């Protein structure tokens, strides 16, 4: 049982090269904040990247930041905030949901899990903001892809290939991201008391307007009470976030009020109170209950979400709330069984997508495919890629199986 704790990319390379030579798999770890996601690993050795840390380049005027893979996300977000900037894709923090500490996680983990948040709708995910990477593959080869400029089509976009690979293709040593100005003003318009179907209609109306809504979530009755220390009360809340320069936000909120005046009672929430709500929606706080009740993260066609959940409720006890206009459904299975086949079957009938079992007891994670199984031709293609980059299954073996 060895834990390697490299402080340089050369040390990462020699650790992986040793593991390749030995044929001895490694668990790739940053802070371990997402360690509970995926099939449980049984590796003898660990590659701990938490000491491979530090921002190596930050040029605010060029909108670019590079950091070593083990750099704490919190450190990067603090640095950006001091300069009025941010990672616009708003990476979520899995800590609270998975029973860990909040505020942990590394920038490498952000990319490996392709994290995003409520602003995914408008601003994309980690995959949309990564500009370049340096990695060590499961063959023990160090290489780079991309660069530090936004517009770049030179060669294949390997950064995107590695996004959402959960450490199974290569180990990140350095990552470069596009950063963006943080919005000057943020206001959330809440419509109260809507049922799921009415909320879906209201969100579609708002997103189809020119109000440039950056986030749209629906918290059904009782779920609403579990964000921002209960400040919303327990009545259902359909939340629309508008961000930008002050005069523009005021204008667009007014336009939304006119558009949605008949949808239900409206409430305006500004500034810090608004950001606290979105932080908790982002981190799936309503289900952060220190239990092991299975939690699913379902990505699907927005307009079909409430019908899918309605049908699911007829066969299983679930709690649900919606982000991304309904394109992201968070589900907690109240009876303890993940009901994977049932859920995935319904998902296929409702326009397709993917369901990831982000929280479950290790026994469930060993028995149920955590990531959405792929059709045979696609699964074979993914397996060929794994074979190309990690033929000896050295890196996080079986985690995505």
């Amino acid at each position, binding site marked *: 049982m060895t834990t390697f704790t490299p402080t340089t990319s050369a040390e990462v390379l020699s650790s992986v090269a040793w593991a390749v030579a030995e044929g001895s798999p490694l668990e790739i770890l940053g802070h371990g904040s997402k360690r509970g996601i995926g099939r449980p690993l049984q590796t003898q050795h660990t590659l701990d990247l938490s000491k491979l840390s530090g921002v190596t380049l930050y040029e605010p005027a060029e909108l670019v930041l590079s950091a070593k893979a083990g750099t704490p996300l919190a450190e990067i977000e603090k640095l950006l905030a001091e300069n009025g900037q941010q990672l616009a894709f708003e990476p979520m923090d899995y800590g609270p949901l998975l029973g860990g500490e909040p505020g942990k996680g590394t920038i490498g983990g952000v990319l490996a899990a392709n994290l995003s948040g409520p602003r995914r709708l408008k601003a994309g995910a980690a995959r949309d903001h990564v500009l370049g990477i340096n990695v060590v593959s499961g063959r023990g080869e160090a290489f780079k892809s991309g660069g530090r400029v936004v*517009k770049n089509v030179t060669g294949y*976009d390997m950064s995107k290939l590695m996004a959402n690979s959960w450490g199974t293709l290569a180990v990140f040593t350095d990552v470069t991201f596009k950063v963006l100005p943080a919005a000057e003003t943020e206001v959330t318009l809440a419509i109260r008391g809507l049922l799921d179907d009415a909320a879906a209609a209201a969100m579609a109306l708002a997103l189809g307007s020119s109000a440039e809504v950056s986030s749209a979530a629906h918290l059904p009755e009782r779920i609403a009470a579990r964000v921002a220390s209960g400040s919303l009360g327990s009545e259902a809340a359909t939340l629309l976030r508008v961000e930008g320069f002050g005069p523009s936000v005021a204008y667009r909120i007014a336009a939304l009020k006119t558009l949605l005046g008949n949808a239900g009672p409206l409430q305006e929430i500004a500034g810090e109170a608004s950001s606290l709500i979105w932080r908790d929606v982002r981190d799936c706080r309503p289900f952060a209950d220190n239990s092991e009740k299975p939690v699913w993260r379902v990505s699907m066609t927005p307009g079909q979400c409430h019908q899918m959940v309605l049908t699911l409720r007829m066969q299983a006890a679930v709690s649900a709330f919606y982000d991304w206009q309904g394109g992201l459904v968070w589900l907690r299975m109240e009876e303890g069984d993940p009901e994977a086949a049932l859920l995935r079957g319904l998902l296929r009938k409702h*326009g397709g997508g993917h369901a990831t079992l982000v929280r479950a007891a290790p026994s469930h994670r060993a028995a149920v495919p955590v990531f959405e199984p*792929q059709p045979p031709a696609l699964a074979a293609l993914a397996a060929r890629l794994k074979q190309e980059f990690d033929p000896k299954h050295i890196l996080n073996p079986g985690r995505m199986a």
Partner: protein
Amino acid sequence: MSGLAMPKPDDATMRRRDEIVADMRIIVPGEGVVDAANSMRAFESDGLTAYRQLPLVVVLPQTVAQVSRVLKYCNDRNIRVVPRGSGTSLSGGALPLEDAVLLVMSRFNRILGIDFPNRIVVAQPGVTNLGITTAVEQEGFYYAPDPSSQIACSIGGNVAENSGGVHCLKYGLTANNVLGIEMVLMNGEVVRLGGSHLDAEGYDLLGVMTGSEGLLGVVTEVTVRILKKPETARALLIGFPTSEQGGQCVADIIGAGIIPGGMEMMDRPAIHAAEDFVHAGYPLDVEALLIVELDGPGVEVDHLIGLVEAIAYKNGSTTCRISQSEQERLSFWAGRKAAFPAVGRISPDYYCMDGTIPRKELPRVLAGMRELSEKYGLGVANVFHAGDGNLHPLILYDANVPGELDKAESFGADILRLCVKVGGVLTGEHGVGVEKRDLMPEMFTQIDLDQQMRVKCAFDPNHLLNPGKVFPQLRRCAELGRMHISGGKLPFPDIPRF
């Protein structure tokens, strides 16, 4: 490129041409197979017109099943295939090969679905980029990426090239606006990546397919996200005595937290060529001209115009006009949009480059270009996507003067080397194709390139799809697949362990 080496034609394929053409006619009946030399002439080149080659045969399938059968047929018989959309590539991505089937997707030209509540359009790959916007604009929507060839280029080609455009600083590239594709692998298998939902369930193969230049698969359907049109747009036309001041103005606009819908810069030769051509009213006594377009609700646009005007003034602008009408806004753009044909008027031929640099390096790169211009004795005019550092130097030459094309290409290669040297890249949006293929080692080591070829091996292990593009040298997949293990010693005595 004059010395461009393409893969050696396969004799066995060339000998079997008649048989292959006959088999193609069975797979794609009717008008879908073109084999007469004079009819194939229309397909001998793409937007990089210096290179021409007749293909083995042109095949225009109409169904996914036909695409699958053509690819499987070719895969089984070791026949090369070059996919093609509208043929507007500026890097030779669709340049035919003598021994390859040219698979033209232009008959896949239908919009398959429009879903306004979910803001998505499903289109066949031969639909033009502008065709998508045209299909949804009556409801006030549009498709954001807008490459300058948008009237002709196909959405399938946009996926292959990860096309950008003037608005991609704010609204992203093709990769950020495509939700899903259906594609056919070289072995004939049909796979779907993504759909009307966000993100991938496993490896982000959609991300790697976008910008893969037709080497990994043939796209047969595309799902894109559409956006509501901004309520209004206005532009500022700002002139500076030096390019440094123009560059600093761009940096300060972004530093103020403003991401304009478009931000374009032109240098003196480009300004003069454009003004002579379209009489847009550009100032002729400036070294750098900046067009800044702000879009959104009127109140936001007015607010930001005030901020940008102040920033321009602080940076020493000598002229600053603000569009007062839609007509005036379009007139600001008229010169920029006509920059390429305008340069075409002052020079018999021009060669368009596409490097990207960190913006702060602009003065250094412009100075370097002036030196190179003197060294080669050829003029150069610059248009520049200023917000994201994407340069389009236009090298002026005359193809009828012996040796000038070679000189222009050497000049271009030197510009791209300079871009890489200052921390930039070879191509921002036009692709590598055949044009920049042999420059790839300027940016990547052999190990870096090997990894990209490994991706290729997972998709097309026999290198049959669009060979001769992107990679300076294709290594056999069996050779790449070997593991090189160095002894199995413990090379980590200095790694901290617990």
